[in-house]
């Protein structure tokens, strides 16, 4: 993300020409004398385009992002203080929605499940894809096929993935048939609320492996081979080299993966919705926070105000999770 600054900025040796350059009107072809070229690279003063061009380039993006992300965000915050419904404008009701939320048992169930999801899904998603990336890193014959194949669950729609696993985990499904064969007996993966949540987590991990594997692959490509070789010469085994060379080298990527996966785990919807049903299993035991937002806020009688308050909670916790992970990383770096 910080690429631009280093690219467009002047190299450390060259003095930065500040405001000394006269603006060159766009389209004027002047001979490229050396100082002019250097200034063009330094950019700030020279205009190589019409003043309106950047805004024409940006207009579609700003319009969509502003209209369908930032405006809805602001109206979510505003709505959370009203009693708006799908078809009626709301009246300002102060913090009533938030008060109600605190006393809503479903809210606590949803919050619990969403947080459990983070705890259950993030550690395997930080570690397993790294091991997978190491496995497919070497250029062996056929490795491209394996990489693409490992990525397939990422490509498939979450609905397809959900339905596939519902069939596999069914009481009469493949996995129970195998468990039956080894004498364990039928396990109610989809009927017990706790097991169902665990099964959904397993599916999320399974679907996410390939995605994070790719991120790790990009990071591993930047680890110098020499480090491994030097370490090997010193007699370190594979495990030792993994811990002393690979892990420290990709630690910032591990933090990125932790941040990304915890944010998406907290917002889980589809896996649980598909496996437990729209209402989150019997008694809503398996409802997650986002499922609750969808249940409460949509439909003709949707309680937009209350759903907005729930949404604000989702947003705040998401942001909090991200900051928490990033901060943990900074602390570690300070110690190092």
């Amino acid at each position, binding site marked *: 993300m910080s*690429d*631009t600054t280093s*690219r*467009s900025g002047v190299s450390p040796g060259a003095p930065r020409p500040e405001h000394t350059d006269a603006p060159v009107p766009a*389209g004027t*072809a002047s001979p*490229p004398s050396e100082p002019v070229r250097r200034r*063009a690279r330094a950019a700030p003063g020279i205009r*190589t*385009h019409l*003043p309106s*061009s*950047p*805004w024409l*380039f940006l207009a*579609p*993006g700003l319009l*969509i*992002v502003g209209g*369908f*992300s*930032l405006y*809805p*965000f602001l109206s*979510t915050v505003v709505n959370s203080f009203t009693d*708006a419904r*799908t078809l009626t404008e709301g009246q300002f009701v102060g913090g009533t929605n938030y008060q109600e939320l605190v006393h809503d048992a479903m809210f606590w169930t949803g919050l619990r499940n969403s947080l459990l999801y983070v705890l259950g899904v993030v550690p395997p998603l930080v570690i397993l894809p790294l091991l997978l990336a190491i*496995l497919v890193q*070497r250029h*062996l014959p056929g490795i491209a096929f*394996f*990489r693409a*194949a490992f*990525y*397939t669950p990422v*490509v498939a*729609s979450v*609905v397809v993935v959900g*339905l*596939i696993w519902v*069939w*596999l985990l*069914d009481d009469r499904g493949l996995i129970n*048939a195998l468990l039956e064969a080894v004498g364990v007996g039928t396990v109610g993966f989809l009927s017990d609320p706790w097991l169902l949540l665990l099964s959904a987590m397993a599916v999320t991990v399974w679907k996410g492996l*390939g995605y994070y594997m*790719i*991120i790790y692959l*990009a990071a591993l490509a930047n680890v110098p081979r020499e480090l491994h070789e030097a370490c090997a010469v010193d007699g370190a085994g594979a495990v030792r080299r993994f811990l002393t060379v690979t892990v420290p080298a990709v630690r910032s990527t591990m933090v*990125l993966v932790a941040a990304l996966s915890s944010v998406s785990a907290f*917002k889980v*919807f589809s896996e649980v919705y598909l496996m437990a049903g729209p209402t989150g299993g019997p008694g809503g035991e398996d409802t997650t926070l*986002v499922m609750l*937002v*969808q249940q409460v*806020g949509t439909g003709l009688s949707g309680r*937009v105000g209350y759903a*907005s308050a729930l949404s604000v909670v989702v*947003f705040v916790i*998401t*942001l909090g999770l991200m900051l928490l992970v990033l901060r943990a990383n900074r602390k570690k770096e300070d110690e190092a």
Partner: protein
Amino acid sequence: MRGEVKQERRERRMPRWRLLLRYLLLLAVLAVTIGPFLWQLSTSLKGAGEDIYRYPPSLIPRHLTFGNYADVAEIIPVWDFALNSLKVAAANVLTNCVGAALAGYALARMRFTGRKTALVVFVMAMLVPVESIMIAQFVTMRELQLNNTLIGVLLPACIGAMNVMLMRNAFAGVPYEIEQAAFVDGANAWQRFVRIALPSVKGTLAVVAIFAFMGAWDDFLWPLIVLSDQSKFTLTIGLNFLHGTFADNQRLVAAGTVIAVLPLIALFACLQRYFFRGVGEGAVKG
């Protein structure tokens, strides 16, 4: 020259048993990642006379049939759903590639007052989780009278802030000298964008295209909220509907899922070279 290459290969070669172990591991992971899809495919091909709950389970159908596919298409309009999905996905690819490339180019290559502000707008949009604004988006769509339309499904994600940032990074990574030369030769911003900058970021553009297609084709939550009329359903919503209606006929559900996932896997298999290269170029970096 050739001898040198060979020499290097020999140095890097690992012992045979470790190579074998590596391939065994690769195959084990392959079974875990691909196996469930194969099982689904197998179920979809099993005839009505065959017990799909039989033990021991068999991956190869005894009575191979494509009848389940015909049945699924008869019961729910799978092909109409697929067409709806295709329309949304294709439009999403187009709008994302064009919109994100334009905005990314302006952010990376143009200097103007307000650039920082524009950047902040995109970063903030990236930080806002879709899930926490979907109710407000739903209300906005109602006000625009776009609820229950495919345009309504498409609009919120048609230019992703994330894609804008990806394109911005890609443009920033391209050496500026050629563009300068073009500028000196009198090329305007548009010409430099189309003829010089865009061709240099094909890899990232491919990544954006694939992500945009997958995102639209796979999306479940937003279409579920926007669409209510069965004739407008996308494939994912249609499948969920199929699952709800025919939970006890697993063969039909399996056939439906295969229809939904095969085109995407085929597309990905064709594009994966560009995809992995594009990602490797540093599109996804912390």
